């Protein structure tokens, strides 16, 4: 039904897809597996018409196609259900299902016709209890998923792509999702299913394609019979020329951070660990395992129960207080959460320690510029002009500016959430070196990364998270990618 051959997609600095093949048959659930950064998301976006491939061919029902935009992809019969559901909460179920192709005559929406059609689609999905007139914001996550699927069906989709559809669902809701998927495939619809959970893939999947480094490493493996070890070894051993700096020879110093029984409803529970001065502790886990949420809770940016002790003193859950006491966070979404894009590199660097540059509120701009200049040089931020707006810098250099912010003042603990996201390979090595050097200077570092090799290569100690709980803690040197991946996908502790 769908045949993709040799798909290549090049982004500045990264070859996201480097020759991907995919065959999907009508009526099957085809699972796409691969680690973060393997190219799954880019591949989906090519099918959804968001990205156009640089090379390669796509055939659909024997015809060469080239989705040039989201609308084009929908016309071809491709529907994508993203991880973050893209529904409008304030509108009714019907309005969401038919958003963009309303039942209308002369611009007037015909509610009755729309509701009738929606009811039919929902019945087909086995959910007659969802009323077409309900506001979507009032529905449960599972019901929203059904609405998303109803939208896909309303377009007469022949191929539905689901990106981690189970991530936001409870157990029984997942069972229901699978029932719907089976009904759809029974009607000849093909489903491309992306998930990190192997047990799900075994249950719902027919065949598996594995991606690694933007390439297809296995096509059409039987989902039920392929041994786990084979799948994991196909995904691992990524051929990435990451250069990790050598670990420190010295013993880590005093305990900088101790976390006791930290919990946050719906995200993680009963997490305890500690970070010592000069030590990098890595948190490994899937999206939704609670890794970023733990950082936010430690930082005081998310309500949590339990104790957070910084250098022997228990701290309150307050970002302002924690920053004053020597914490710093480089958040996951660099542009949305860390940077003032219009402002200069200098203003971004000094944002976290403004009182240190001021006497009675009066800024010492000369000293501010001098410090920014020094850090720009020390971290090799390019171009080396701290007066430039930070938005004109590349991702890696923006990240360095965020790190530089926390090099000012006396920091004891740095929380780094996906520090190399969107950073090209060359700049990654530099960032790794910077992070290691920070630790060598006696700062405790708590690192979150969705890339297992990064956690293993950079951290001294690793905590493995699964569904909001720590399932393993150990020396990074005693773990390998294979083992960690097995733990986070199958829930088996080593």
């Amino acid at each position: 039904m769908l045949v993709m051959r040799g798909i290549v997609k090049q982004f500045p600095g990264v070859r996201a897809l480097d020759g991907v093949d995919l065959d999907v048959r009508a009526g099957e659930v085809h699972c796409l597996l691969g680690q973060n950064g393997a190219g799954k998301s880019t591949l989906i976006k090519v099918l959804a018409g968001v990205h156009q491939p640089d090379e390669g061919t796509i055939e659909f029902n024997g015809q060469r196609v080239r989705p040039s935009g989201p609308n084009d992809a929908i016309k071809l019969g491709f529907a994508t259900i993203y991880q973050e559901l893209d529904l409008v909460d304030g509108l009714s179920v019907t309005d969401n299902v038919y958003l963009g192709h309303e039942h209308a005559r002369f611009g007037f929406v015909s509610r009755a016709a729309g509701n009738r059609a929606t009811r039919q689609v929902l019945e087909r999905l086995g959910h007659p209890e969802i009323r077409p007139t309900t506001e979507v914001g009032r529905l449960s996550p599972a019901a929203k998923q059904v609405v998303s699927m109803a939208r896909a069906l309303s377009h007469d989709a022949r191929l539905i792509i689901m990106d981690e559809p189970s991530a936001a669902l409870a157990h029984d809701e997942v069972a229901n999702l699978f029932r719907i998927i089976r009904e759809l495939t029974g009607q000849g619809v093909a489903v491309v299913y992306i998930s990190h959970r192997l047990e799900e893939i075994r249950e719902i999947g027919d065949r598996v394609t594995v991606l690694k480094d933007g390439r297809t490493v296995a096509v059409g493996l039987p989902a039920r019979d392929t041994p786990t070890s084979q799948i994991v070894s196909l995904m691992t051993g990524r051929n990435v020329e990451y250069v990790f700096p050598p670990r420190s020879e010295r013993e880590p110093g005093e305990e900088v951070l101790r976390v006791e029984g930290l919990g946050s409803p719906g995200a993680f529970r009963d997490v305890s660990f500690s970070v010592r001065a000069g030590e990098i502790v890595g948190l490994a886990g899937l999206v939704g395992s609670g890794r970023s949420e733990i950082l936010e809770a430690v930082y005081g940016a998310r309500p949590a129960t339990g104790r957070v002790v910084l250098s022997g003193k228990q701290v309150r859950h307050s970002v302002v207080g924690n920053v004053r006491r020597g914490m710093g966070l480089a958040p996951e979404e660099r542009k949305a959460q860390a940077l003032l894009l219009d402002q200069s590199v200098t203003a971004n660097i000094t944002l976290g320690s403004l009182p240190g540059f001021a006497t009675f509120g009066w800024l010492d701009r000369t000293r501010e510029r001098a410090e920014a200049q020094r850090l720009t040089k020390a971290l090799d931020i390019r171009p080396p002009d701290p007066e430039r707006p930070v938005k004109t810098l590349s991702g890696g250099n923006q990240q360095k500016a965020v790190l530089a912010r926390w090099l000012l003042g006396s920091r004891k603990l740095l929380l780094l959430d996906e520090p190399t996201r969107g950073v090209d390979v060359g700049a990654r090595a530099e960032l790794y070196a910077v992070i290691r050097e920070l630790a060598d200077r006696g700062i405790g570092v708590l690192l979150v990364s969705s890339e297992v090799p990064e956690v293993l290569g950079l951290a001294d100690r690793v905590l493995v998270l699964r569904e909001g709980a720590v399932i393993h803690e150990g020396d990074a040197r005693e773990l390998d990618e294979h083992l960690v991946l097995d733990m986070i996908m199958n829930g088996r502790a080593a």
Partner: protein
Amino acid sequence: MSDPTKPRADSGPVGTVSPPRPARNPLRGLIEGGHVGLLVAIALLVVVGLVTRPTAFATTSNLVSILSLAATIGVITVGATFVIIGGGIDLSVGAIMALASVWATTVATQEFGPVVMAICAILVGTGAGLVNGLLIAYGRLVPFIATLAMLVAARGLAQRMSDRKTQLIQADNSAIVELSTTRVLGVPLLVYVFALVVALGWVLLNRTTFGRRTYAVGGNPEAARLAGIDVRRHTMLLYALSGLCCGIAAILIMARTTTGSSTHGDLYELDAIAAVIIGGTLLTGGRGTIIGSILGLLIFTLITNLFILNGLNTSDQLIAKGLIIVVAVLLQRRNLKERAP
């Protein structure tokens, strides 16, 4: 910290060469590129004035009257600039000014003399602004709604206190009125007050942590919060500052009109916001300048002046102002695009 790795020529888009920076001009911080258009507009209006009313326009008394006219709203505009750069909006400025003028001119307040009257106006203004700030920052009300409520309520309170009557400043308190009658170098004192507020506002915005935080809170509140800035407290202070400016403006309008009245400052909020927008401040926050706002205000005041001098209809004046707002914003959008990378 030493250089962690050698610079790599092949590491992607980091190697952009920065153009040589022009020599630091002392005026660079004051007059930015975006202000050139405003200065040109002012120059054009001056030319129009010189051509249409060559004798009446370029007189000292006319220039003084332009500045006196601009002074009251000008002080308010300084406060409004802070609020808008900080990502908010304050619709209640005119009403707060009216309330402060009424409160300061009640019989009870007037008994204590001009100094207490001035302090009273400032305290009332700051207090009302603080209420706005508390509602917005800690009560989590949308700024538009909180200050709209204050607009209505402060006007009502002013009417109730004054019994809808205009309150004259008594002869013993004429020291307040002297702000507009006493001239130094031919310019009334209230224009100096205006200039002082602008200067202090500029310093606060450009040279202090408060100003830097204002840009941060307006530009990216989440980033500001995660960088350890107390965003709520800062938001509250911004509205209090706006209220403070309204209190100062109340003193100026009392000086100019010799009265306190619940009708003072009607629609000032719109003039102030318009001036800020024409001056290049983004309504979404995070970007803007005091100088731009003041230039925007001068454009507005010049138009009013030219219409009056030429005996033209005030309705046409409003139409002209509306057009100017649209044109100014369209021009700025083009500038923004050109500057984007």
